[in-house]
């Protein structure tokens, strides 16, 4: 799989294969299978670039991102998945004191985007 990202975001390429995942289910599974250190590493790497990233994806119409930008966009959606775990749950890869996540079915969890 290519891990190319748009020019201004090449610093994130080492994380692209792990976090550039197309579906909500895949991003959720990745988060649950990661350590606190891995979540923190991804968070620390991408958050400083986030304002720039959101401007970049808005150079394209909704849902019409070229492959490199789409990969980057999937990484931003993975950040949406893990951000509460860094910002609210002290790095816990699971939602603390929660119902069993694997029993919670996301109806559209396998759709890309």
């Amino acid at each position, binding site marked *: 799989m290519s891990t190319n990202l748009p020019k201004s975001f090449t610093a994130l390429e080492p994380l692209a294969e792990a976090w550039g995942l197309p579906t*909500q289910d895949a991003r959720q599974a990745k988060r649950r299978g990661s350590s606190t250190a891995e979540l923190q590493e991804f*968070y620390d790497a991408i*958050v400083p670039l*986030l*304002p720039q990233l*959101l*401007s970049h*994806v*808005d150079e*394209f119409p*909704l*849902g019409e*991102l070229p492959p490199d930008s789409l990969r980057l*966009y999937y990484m*931003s*959606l993975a*950040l*949406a*998945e893990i*951000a*509460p775990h860094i*910002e*609210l*749950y002290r790095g816990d890869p699971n*939602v*603390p*004191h*929660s*119902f069993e*996540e694997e*029993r*919670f*079915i*996301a*109806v*559209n969890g396998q759709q890309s*985007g």
Partner: protein
Amino acid sequence: MTESSQHRWAEKYPELGQGPIAVESCISEDYYQREVEQIFKTSWLYVAREEEIAEPGSYKVKRLAFADTSVIVMRGKDGVVRGFHNICSHRGNTVVTETGEETFGHSKAAILSCRFHGWVYGADGALIQVPEEERFYSCFKKKENSLEAIHTEVWAGFVFINLAAEPEQNLHNFLGDYGTHMGDYPYSDLTHSYKYHTTLDCNWKIAHDSFAEAYHVTTIHAGSFPNVFSTGLSDVQLFGPHRTCAVCLNMSAEPKPVAALAQKHGRGSLVAKGGSAMLPPTINPSGREDFAFELSVAFPNLFLHISEGIWFTHQFWPLSTGRTLWEGKYYVRAPRTNSERWALEHAQLLQRNAWLEDTQTMENTHRAIASGAKKFMNLQDEEILIRHAYHVIEKRMTAVE
């Protein structure tokens, strides 16, 4: 009634009483059977949004396990939505092959064809074609073998069904002032949805109760919503069997970096203060600045919440005394940009996590109640919606007997 009263809702609704509530109704097989017969089989139940079956010939099949049936709701070429039991008049196969709790389909010709032997029905339920019809006997009449109709009516784009042979009230009268209170909201404009479901090993009322108060937010949502919502309710109103209130923000919460960016790029989270342009004039009558969302319950099993740019539902479908299908559906305006789409994803995932926190207690509560060690639950004043629910259920069942 004053804001300072600690018992303001009991003072407003003295008929509900203040005593403890017996928990037997959550674990009794007999009580459950009576709830099914006297409430679920005779009440109007929300089963589909009109947008889900927008085109003529579009249909949705929804399982109604408590009644051992499934309803097909289908839009005809005349635009009318009708409901039928999903059972063929031939030998009782399902007409539409279901793929789960909810099954969607579309027929350009607005017909339903049973896969078993190819019997064809119109969107009005009429049996219109039987292969090898001449081999049936003279006693067989097509016009006597339509699909079995289920009473189906629409309010504010919500399709409701009623399994009673003759419902006591039409949907409009059943919803009454609740319908007026919640009806004038642009539900159909907010179509970007996130849907989750799970089966919970608990009675449906335990699931209902867990979502029907804000007392739990400081403990249960210490993770996802720290210092976000007030534990007290605002503007509680009871409308016959239905109920509503407002949940308010605790304005002291400061968003973290990613959450702050998400709030800037899209309106998708209840955590941020929204406007009131979409809200009906009936909502937030106190004009509170810290209003977050309206939390309402349409009896018996629909939670409907509205906020600026966001509406969402919970439904609790009884499967047995100790099993419940929970469905959570969250709707926001369709994003126009990729960054807005990202912001909505962030909002929804945080909401999903909050629902994971909400559902955490339910099975434990049921298991503990089933021990029989405690016979009653104790409710405080801000748990008035729960008190009302038990009051209404008890009244319904007594009225029937």
